[in-house]
């Protein structure tokens, strides 16, 4: 098989809480692969580490200590590179029985080296769109000027007039009405949905290999959300761009993703083809995924006026990570047979069906892995 376009291996991104003098293990050993042409959806509650994973891949984590270990391989334009190559020497991680207890990081050296690794990658190979698009555009410049700027930076079109034509072409492609007029609009003169379209145009205008969409529909109202999702689906069909989609909204993930990774407490707890992971009749899945799916209101539950099925307990705070399974405290499927394992040993991500991996002791595959 073709090597994945982006392969994240054992990524750890930690932050530090001064008040508690403890690490916040936002991303704690995540491995993910995004194959060329597919959309990988990362879903999880707030604080599960999905955005931080994406920011780490784009080299945009600024708070310390940040990325402390892992590899991020990018295979594009026939070249393979590790976006964290050689960064290990700037961070000295001290571990005590499997846990990080201290990190000594040369932040400046790290940042400098990371910038050289990311040069020509960020924006060009990996483009990103964010939530709250209105604040992601410079309020004092027209969207046209901002679009022209990225086009001239990343493509061979260096002449103003050519870049302008390309910019208008892109505004058209993201279905902005009368792009020639909109070209001279400032962000505050446009709706949130329109701004997100402009952001998408800016991200795609560099013709990147990978698009990271970090909660692209958050901060927009419901009808606009579904239009943006439609647009992403159409652009996907047209350009075939590889996408890493991050959302806490399962319906968005469901509509756009080929494969899904469910994250909880800084780790991936389940990955697999979207159809398999989210299939309504499927039984073999992580208890967290099952709970997530059960918490979506359906037409049926609304008609019966029954309560939404919330997940008991609170999202795992990634400061005090338990020894065993991270979901143990909230899990409703622990049986006596596996309780000891659940409480004491973190389950491995084990393959329960071809291409479908689950991190749970319920499945015998976990024992073998």
């Amino acid at each position: 098989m073709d090597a994945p376009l982006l392969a994240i291996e054992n990524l750890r991104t930690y932050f530090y809480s001064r008040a508690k003098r403890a690490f916040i293990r936002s991303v704690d050993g995540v491995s993910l692969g995004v194959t060329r042409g597919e959309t990988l959806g990362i879903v999880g509650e707030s604080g599960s580490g999905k955005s931080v994973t994406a920011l780490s891949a784009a080299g945009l984590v600024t708070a310390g200590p940040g990325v402390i270990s892992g590899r991020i391989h990018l295979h594009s334009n026939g070249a393979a590179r590790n976006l964290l190559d050689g960064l290990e020497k700037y961070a000295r991680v001290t571990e005590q029985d499997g846990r990080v207890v201290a990190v000594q990081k040369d932040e400046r050296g790290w940042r400098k080296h990371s910038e050289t690794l990311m040069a020509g990658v960020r924006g060009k190979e990996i483009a990103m769109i964010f939530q709250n698009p209105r604040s992601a555009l410079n309020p004092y410049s027209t969207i046209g000027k901002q679009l022209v700027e990225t086009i001239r930076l990343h493509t061979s079109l260096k002449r103003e007039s050519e870049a302008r034509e390309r910019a208008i072409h892109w505004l058209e492609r993201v279905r902005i009405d009368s792009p020639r007029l909109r070209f001279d609009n400032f962000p505050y003169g446009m709706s949130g949905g329109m701004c997100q379209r402009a952001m998408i145009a800016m991200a795609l205008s560099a013709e990147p290999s990978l698009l990271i969409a970090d909660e692209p529909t958050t901060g927009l109202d419901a009808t606009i959300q579904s239009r943006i999702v439609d647009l992403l689906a159409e652009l996907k069909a047209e350009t075939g761009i590889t996408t890493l989609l991050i959302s806490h909204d399962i319906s968005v993930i469901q509509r756009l993703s080929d494969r899904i990774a469910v994250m909880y407490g800084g780790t991936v707890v389940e990955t697999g083809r979207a159809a398999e992971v989210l299939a309504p009749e499927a039984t073999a899945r992580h208890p967290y995924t099952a709970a997530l799916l059960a918490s979506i209101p359906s037409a049926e539950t609304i008609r019966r006026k029954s309560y939404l099925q919330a997940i008991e307990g609170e999202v795992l705070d990634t400061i005090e990570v338990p020894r065993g399974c991270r979901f143990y405290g909230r899990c409703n499927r622990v049986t006596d047979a596996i309780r000891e394992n659940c409480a004491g040993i973190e389950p491995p991500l084990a393959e329960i069906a071809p291409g479908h991996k689950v991190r749970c002791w319920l499945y015998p595959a976990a024992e073998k892995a």
Partner: protein
Amino acid sequence: MRRYVQSPGSVGEFSQLPLWQRAATLDLVYVGYGLLVVALVLASYLLGALGWLPHDPQAMNVGLINAAPFTPGHLLGTDFLGRDLQARLILGIQAYFLPGLLAVTISVVAGSVLGILAGYRGGWFDTIITYFDNLLDSFPRLVLILLVIASFKPDIYYVMVVVGITGMPVIANLIAGKIAFLRQKSFIEAAHALGLPARTVILKHILWLNCRALLVIQATLGMAEAILVETSLSYLGFGVQEPTPSWGNMVQAGANYFLQGNFWPSTAPALAILATILGFQLLGDGLNNLLEGKRRK
């Protein structure tokens, strides 16, 4: 009665209206007056620099001292030595024009650099700049200037360097505050994510697009401040020395004759100071309202 009229052109295109149609009338008056003053000062500076004066500013006429305005040959009258006031007023601009520009340049350039370091880098830069600011604030500016004059020499350029440095923290703080505000919006992060180099983000997206109005406003206010400092020092005798004219030493020289009924020789330069400083201040104020959108019709 108020009129509410839909502007021609498409609906909701607020930004498409020209600036002067969006602005409040008062702000336009402020800015208009300010620009007039700036133009007059600039023109007078050039006249003085080229020596194209209506009269020889040093020529004394003992027969015609403390003459009133509109005396034939002397439009604004003469001073206590019978020298032409109009020519001396025009030449007086030489005393503050270039030094004032120097002070403004120092405070704007250095203030921007410090502001960016504090706002963009943060950390200990921010702390140091805050302390520096507090230090300058707690020390009377005039005393600092007199100290410099005492320890170096009574040169207006030395003084203006001090004025520039003491004006720096205000601008640094404003820029740092602006950056802190902009950081809440994610477009700086988005610009990085789009791969724009840090230099472009800082110089173009932060300083040029978001801070230029603020800098222009601060520059005009800084110029007003510099003029005030120069005239005060010259009045006190620490600035430009006789016989070279400065508005400050003209007020001082005329003041001796003020109570004898010859109020004009000191009132003329005093009015010039008032009108000029008011012009720069109102220009700054008006621009602040226009460009920063502090007041809307």
